């Protein structure tokens, strides 16, 4: 089953996923399927559960999974520790990237890349090789090279934090990248740069899940599917046109039609 391209099996299968936080249900039965090579956009109003879904995929500990399963490239994703998921190619770009007091950005990246390489049975990169790789990716995401010498996310502007997430993604080359509102708070140039970064990662052998509020991101990264999340459920799925429709009509339109059909 485990074919090396991962092409024969889905990248990600989410079945009937129910998640609770502090005794209240946040996700109430999520189903969706992501194949290699696909880009999925997840949209939905504030508080509908988008970040919860993204964080559950990455393995954030405080969520209680009460029902359902998540299969990643044929394996039970929910059984893995967060670092194991990362090493197997799952990447979450955080909606709110975390500051790591005193830890230099390059040092953190080196440790992350080394952990991944060790998992893949590869040798640790030499300082020089790492440096070359870092410089190349820094150019790609067009961030100030000084950021790599600074403390991770400390004093970074909102846009710099988001670009730094993309830099990490570019360094780790994940198979499944989940981007949680990476487009929020970006100026127009940064948005294009981030989108370019994502498009460069895009290939037949990996997949991308984009959580976004805005059509403008989807102008750069055309999704194969758009899902609308409301009250912890996917209430509608469609093609790129659905995002345009949402932009025009807002969420009430969907809410009404969902309520009507119930």
């Amino acid at each position, binding site marked *: 089953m485990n074919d090396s391209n991962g092409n024969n099996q889905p990248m990600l299968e989410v079945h009937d996923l129910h998640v609770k936080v502090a005794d209240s249900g946040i996700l109430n039965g999520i189903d969706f399927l992501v194949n290699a090579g696909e880009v999925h956009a997840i949209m939905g109003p504030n508080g509908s559960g988008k970040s919860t879904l993204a964080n559950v995929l990455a*393995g954030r500990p405080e969520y209680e999974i009460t029902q359902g399963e998540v299969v990643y490239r044929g394996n039970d994703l929910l059984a893995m520790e*967060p*670092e194991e*998921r990362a090493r197997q190619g799952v990447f979450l770009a955080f909606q709110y990237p975390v500051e*790591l007091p*005193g830890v*230099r950005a390059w040092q953190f990246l080196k*440790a992350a890349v080394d952990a991944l390489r060790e998992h893949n049975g590869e040798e640790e990169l030499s300082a020089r090789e790492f440096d070359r790789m870092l410089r190349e990716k820094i150019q790609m995401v067009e961030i100030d090279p000084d950021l790599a010498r600074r403390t991770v996310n400390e004093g970074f502007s909102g846009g710099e934090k988001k670009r730094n997430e993309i830099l990490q993604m570019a360094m780790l080359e994940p198979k499944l990248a989940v981007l949680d509102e990476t487009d929020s708070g970006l100026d127009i140039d940064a948005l294009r740069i981030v989108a370019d970064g994502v498009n460069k990662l895009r290939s037949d052998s990996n997949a991308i899940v984009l959580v976004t509020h805005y059509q403008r991101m989807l102008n750069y990264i055309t999704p194969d599917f758009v899902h609308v999340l409301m009250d912890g459920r996917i209430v509608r799925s469609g093609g790129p046109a659905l995002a345009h429709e949402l932009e025009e009509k807002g969420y009430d339109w969907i809410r009404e039609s969902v309520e009507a059909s119930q």
Partner: protein
Amino acid sequence: MTTSTIRYPRYHEDFQALAAIRPGPSWLVDLRAAAWDRFNELGLPTARRGNERWKYTNLRPLAAIAFESPQATDSTGGLDAGTVRSLAPWDEAWTNLVFVDGKFSEALSTIAPAQNGTVCSDLASALNGNSGPVRDGLAQLASFDDDAFAALNTAFINDGASIQVPDNAVTASPVNLVFVSTAGPQPQVTHPRTLVQVGRNARLTLVESYVDLTGGSNFTNAVLEMAVGQGSHVDHFRLLMDTPDGFHVGTSRVLQGQDSSVTSSSFTTGAAMARNDFLVTLDAPGASCDLRGLYATTGSQHIDNLINIDHAKPHTTSRLFYKGILSGKSRAVFGGTVTVRRDAQKADSRQTDKNLVLSHEAEVDSKPSLLIYADDVQCGHGATAGHIDQDTLFYMQSRGLDRATATKMLIQAFAAEIVDTVGVEQVHGFLETVFAGSIPAESVVFGGRP
């Protein structure tokens, strides 16, 4: 001389033995006797009630042990040179004075050629030769009137280091003092004494390391007295690498002259009970000190830093920045007062203590304080205790780092803020390795909110 009852027979016996074997010049006999009497009157400060200086540190375990003075051994104590060099920062080009169980070891020491008239000697030889500067300097700064540990050390003055830097002398390479404790049949006590006298417009780098190799309950009761003359600069490092059952009381007294500056960094690991009692007196205008420290405790260790700065004169500046890393069931105390005397106008002082608490059961009492009698001053102080939170750990894990690696990285980053201020390369390199290894991963409770 009083004839009160002898409260500590074990110490008394050894005190008498020392007086018999190494009486020294008559002023020393008198000094020791006066100190012994005072110690016997004061007793160890085990009472904690109304005892501000020892409020958070229990000395009963220390008082309960009848430590004995080490038996005379050969001067290497069975240690070879290679081992000693790995225990502390070291460079062959430095003047390295090694003390084994309190006693100077000529065989293990390396004395660099004298630099500009600087005199570095073991204290026992200096006392033997009845050195004038030593006679004039000893017990001038470390008052034992109200301090049982200073009194006890003074009663046992015998060996340690004596360093005199003459006016205008720049000692480019550090003076390195390494005090090593080894195992004896019983828990042992040593009382190393260091006297540093720096003239005018001189420079000195001084490294003191205290290492215990036993794993047992030795007690080191060290005293440093350092007078820094006008316009001089001293870079001082004090490293303690004790064992989990060891006891250490370090009393350091620094007196600074006009326009002198002292930077002093203290690094403390291990010890059932370690006390770092540091007092700097800024005794003339333009004097400034910069005190930094890093302490790491784990298991049931206890570290107590009492750092006092006395702004005695106007236009004096002090900076104090200590950081602690606590895990297991350990405890740290950070106390100390910055005093600004009435005529010390334009004093400028900042005190900060930051702690990283890595388990639920570890605890820190951080109580820096200010006593200000002048009105035109700039003073500030603050203390914090933080932990590694779930969000931070999860972020790092989501990039493929396991919890142990992530935690280690955060601890190192926390320590680096102090370690990276160390400008002496050999000391810096040594600290990086020691502190990285001083926190066992299993003592950390993840995501713990203390």
